[in-house]
């Protein structure tokens, strides 16, 4: 998947950049672990390891692994110049999924999960699936309603709700 070589330059995300970025992020995560471990104590006390003992070791291994990945990639910077992580053309549909999903999660926080789900499913069906209004409406409303009955009424599992549900008395 990652080794497609046929894209025009400029319209791609190169694998080498991703490799380095992810490697550095992993190292950063390791650093976070190490720093906090020293706060809580990372030594081997007389009654066994302290709270931070294992996280500290894990942190250092993460730093080593992350830097090693980044370093390896830097060494092969030239050779890997043609490796493509994803072409812009392929990446557009991914963004078309990722961005609405992010929007959906924000919406859940604002207006509850059920109404957001209606909007999310309907939007996806209309813009990605090019469905007509009627089937879109039918599915996008019936699924959240079914979930509502299942979770809120049958199993009494409270999910995030917003003004619309409050109006209905939930």
């Amino acid at each position, binding site marked *: 998947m990652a080794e497609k070589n046929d894209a025009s330059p400029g319209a791609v995300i190169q694998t080498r950049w991703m490799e380095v970025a992810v490697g550095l992020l992993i190292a950063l995560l390791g650093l976070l672990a190490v720093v906090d471990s020293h706060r809580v104590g990372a030594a081997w006390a007389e*009654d066994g390891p302290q709270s931070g003992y294992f996280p500290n070791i894990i942190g250092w291994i993460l730093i080593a692994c992350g830097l090693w990945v980044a370093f390896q990639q830097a060494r092969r910077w030239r050779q890997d110049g043609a490796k493509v992580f994803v072409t812009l053309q392929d990446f557009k549909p991914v963004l078309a999924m990722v961005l609405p999903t992010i929007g959906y999660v924000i919406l859940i926080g604002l207006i509850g999960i059920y109404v957001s789900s209606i909007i999310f499913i309907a939007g996806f069906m209309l813009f990605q699936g090019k469905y007509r209004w009627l089937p879109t409406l039918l599915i996008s409303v019936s699924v959240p309603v079914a979930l509502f009955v299942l979770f*809120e009424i*049958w199993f*009494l*599992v*409270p999910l995030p709700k917003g003004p619309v549900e409050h109006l209905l*008395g*939930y």
Partner: protein
Amino acid sequence: MKSSLRRTFVAAGLTVAVAASFPALAAWEPTKPVEFIVPAGTGGGADQMARFIQGVVAKNNLMKQPLIVVNKSGGAGAEGFLEVKNAKGDPNKIIITLSNLFTTPLATGVPFNWKDLTPVAMLALDEFVLWVNAESPYKTPADYMAAIKAADNGKYKMAGTGSKQEDQIITVAIDKATGKKLTYVPFKGGGDVAVQLVGKHVDSSVNNPIEAVAHWRAGALRPLCVFDTQPMAYTAKVTATQAWGDIPTCKSQGLDVEYLMLRGIFMPSGVTQDQVDFYVDLFKKVRATPEWKKFTEDGAFKNTFMTGKEFADWAAAAEKHHKQLMQEAGFIAK
């Protein structure tokens, strides 16, 4: 099959509706399902009590709206307490507490306090009993104390639930009484602790009665004493020869340690008196059921009921007591 199930639900709904058509006495009633938060994991003492209350309320139609038990155990219960603290003025949320109401903010520094909540009612107090394996030679607390005193520091192992919580507080108090250090080994739940003791991986535990009763009856564990001012009030025989009431107090046996754990109900702050009264009334009804009577007897709970100012005063005193105990034990977060 599904339709028969649905019928059950409809039937249940109808009963609730019928019950609700009678004029209600309280001025306020929940208008939507009430979240019953448990600041501990599933299967523990608080969880068992909450789920039991949920069952009793449903079975006796004590409330129009259902009670939903939600476990929020993260950060030694801090997750649940923060949730209630942040739900100011929401009358459809109640929380059952254990000692972590006092110990967690002290031990972790997570910012909450019982004063951020509205006290509703104390349901009961949970006792603590000193247990040893039935095959061990210790028949009385004095035997065990003598053995601890004669040995090196840390030779005897005490298992308990969680860290820097009630079980460890009692352990530190015993350390102080004997002058020797017990090795405290924390486990996730009270059930695990009892089994570790049965399996002889540790030397003693301070399990609540309900956590250890099955093993006591099976002859695997032996209670030495109860950490209370007077023996428990239950005189029905639990084993062939002993009742809960036959266990002596630790103080009478020369181990001057007392500890009781709160099982109480709190609400978010900013609720009206009407709303508090509804729940006080609800729990009065719960406590009047025969199921509750059997539940408290099985678990040898200390049946004390308090509400209002009396309860708030008790909580204030308990907080002070915990602060002192935790300070002495060095458990306060810096």
